[in-house]
């Protein structure tokens, strides 16, 4: 290769660079959340799921802008986009879901009595007053369940090599927990009000 051809070769090298942008797989996350929640709530038949359109973690207009910018850049640097699948199969995830599955039966009466409610962020909270004899049990169940939910989101994120996805997974699960709530259960809407299914 002669010296004069080097700039051309450099330009070729430049265009040969590949950037792979892996966006948070929102649709896959919803599907995974549904599977996990159904698995956990096997003791009671879950409610039909409401239709949820796949969502990105970012507003659509932002995604469009980012994609446009990315496409522009890719004139010079070829780019590949990929939406990863979401793996929910790791010993850590199975361990956490095993505990949650074992706990679910104990949560049901508190859901049904209106003692427990699902917050808008998908975590459980005390809404009504539990009978005194059950108060400690309900408090412990809430604390344990919420701790496991946090662990689950992080475990899914870790299993997919993206620990930073935990917050997005939590957000996805929040909608799905509410969607899977059974008739009579209380949940919090996005504006903070409480509703009963």
């Amino acid at each position: 290769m002669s010296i004069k051809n080097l700039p051309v070769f450099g330009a070729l090298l430049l265009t040969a660079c590949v950037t792979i942008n892996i966006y948070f797989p929102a649709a896959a996350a919803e599907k995974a959340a549904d599977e996990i929640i159904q698995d956990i709530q096997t003791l009671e038949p879950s409610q039909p799921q409401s239709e949820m359109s796949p969502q990105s973690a970012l507003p659509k207009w932002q995604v469009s802008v980012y994609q446009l910018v990315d496409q522009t850049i890719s004139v010079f640097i070829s780019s590949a986009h990929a939406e990863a699948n979401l793996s929910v199969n790791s010993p850590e995830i199975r361990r956490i879901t095993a505990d949650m599955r074992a706990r679910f039966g104990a949560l049901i009466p508190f859901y049904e009595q209106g003692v427990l409610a699902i917050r808008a962020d998908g975590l459980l909270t005390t809404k009504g007053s539990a009978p005194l004899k059950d108060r400690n049990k309900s408090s412990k169940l809430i604390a344990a369940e919420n701790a496991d939910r946090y662990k689950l989101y992080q475990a899914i994120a870790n299993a997919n090599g993206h620990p930073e996805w935990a917050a997005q997974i939590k957000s996805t699960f929040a909608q799905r927990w509410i969607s899977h709530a059974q008739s009579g259960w209380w949940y919090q809407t996005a504006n903070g009000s409480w509703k009963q299914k």
Partner: protein
Amino acid sequence: MPLLCLRKFKALHHLILYICLLYTALGYCSVASALDSVTFSVDKIKANDWSLHNAKLKIIQLDQGAPKISLISAHLKLPAPFNNFSKLNIRCQKFIWRENYMDCQQGHGRFNSSDFKAHAFDFSLQVKGKKSKLVIDNLTGFSGKISLNAQDQSGKWQLRFKAQRLNLVQFKEFLASDLFNISQGLADIDIEMIGEQGAVQTILATALLDQLSMQDQQGRIASDALTLKTELSMKKGAKAWQWQNLIDISSGDLYVEPIYLSINSAHAVTLINNGSWWPGQKQVELKSIEFKHTQLLSLQASAAINYQSDLLIESAELELYVPQLKPVTPVYLAPFLATEGIELQGELEVKLKLQQNILSEINLDMQQFTLRDNEQRFYLGQANAEVNWTKQNKNQASFINWQTLNLRAIPFAPGQLDFTLFDRQFRLLQAAKLGVLEGELFIQKFSFSTTENNDDPIVHFKGWADNLSLEQLSRALNWEPLTGSISGYIPSVRYQNKTLSLDGELKMRVFGGQVRINNLASSGMFTNFAQFYMDLEFDNLDLSMITRKFHIGNIEGKLSGVVQNLYLENWQPVSFYAWMGTPEGDDSTHKISQKAVENIASIGGNSAADVLSKGFLSLFSSFRYDKLGFGCYLHQGVCQLMGVEAIDNGFYLVKGGGLPRINIIGYNPRLNWSVLLERLRRITTSDEYIIE
């Protein structure tokens, strides 16, 4: 309380006499029948700290020569410490005063307050020299009756407040406090205070709270229909206050996070305590605390507490006695446990000592106790234990012995462990020999210790297993019964990331050969998600013994192999690499029966029954083979199958040799693990294998 000075009254008396004289001088006395009373006002009648404001006085019976004075209205201001009652209006049917004397009889009063606006009360006030006495009675407040009796003599005073059937819901609203929310409750209160000048010296109080339903803001303290009686006696000594207190709860529900008590006459709760309090030094000495939950437990304690900066328990001693643990465990122990379903029976005695907020000593004595996990993961029966823990002393011995011990379903013989506990360390005092599965488990050395900042304990272990019965083990674990034994030497164990790992090797003598277990590790053994890891090697197992045991048709020959990286979750294989087959250079007889051929074939699918029964091969009850082998790499629920030798599009599971010979060839290299298990169980049919 100061002596009432009646100088103002004296002046007033003169004034009234002056008015009478004036009337007489003016000749009105002749028409006295028309003027039989006089009313007038006085801005303030003051006697040191006692004072009547805006007093309206009325003189009656002027025409009868013995005039009577009544106080029509006045605003009474009391001296300290009663000056909180600042909105008091009174009137007296009969009002007598003279020098150093004032007497209000048949009086009535009314609190000039929104809280008491509709409620009048009987009132009397008597001031006689250095004595004074104030009585408020029949005051209706908070739907109950309230009375107040105050006496003073030369600065020494006594106050008694009594209230009956006070509605605590209304009272809470009056207090405007958000600390507690009260939904129902009545109170009878009797408080007597004795003091001198502005200082209280004695407090005697009793209170009966009836049907009290309340809870705090966070719901951590709550009651439902609680009946509580309390008595408090406090006396001020030369340097300190001495107190005695009794709290008796006879019925209702009480929740003090995390404990819930359902209280009735058979299970009443009593708390008796007494002690000294040095307000100046900010110190409290709890001389005695006695807590008793009838038929459940009794607790006695003493403590020295300092609250100069943070709360500091300088020293404390506590003794707990539980005659029967069974009813106590769900009430007092289970709320503190992370897991549910622990059942305890037996007798318990515990002594604790604290020094400078730190637990320094525990002595625990349990007699004839039973510990049961309702998930049947653990059972300890007819056990006794004496556990002595100290912060520093390494030489205190402890022991636990039992008649029955089951770990999961594995039973242990009666035994005992002698150990010492101190700080964060546990150490076996002497080697232990535990009978298990008809063999013995020797623990030569065992200790573990933790550090404050590290969850993983440091474990030292040396021991071995000798002749554990595989038959007993398989029966305990509900496996197909096996015969043989397990022995092995475990030089050390490790515990990291909540995983217990055993070094060394366990050897099983089974089916005429040997199985070696290496790299055994487990985590969450007693949780919802038990995990096991191990490597297995087996040498020269007798196929004839194996096939007889599992009723899959007779195969003669030897079998060796490995299972590497075996990982089980809840006793179910999740992943492994396994290979088992005829060992190299095996010179034993290699025969396989028709039934075994059928079964091996049908594991993969094809029913060989027709081929074998209808054809030429039906003449032979068994066939010779050169070698056989089967491998599986299990990953993500799929078994990647291997045979003893590859051929086009398939692999030999059994390769024939000699006459009559038979080959079994598999053509499907991948099989769902659950399908494979199901076929092993039911021997179903498909056509993935062929018989040549």
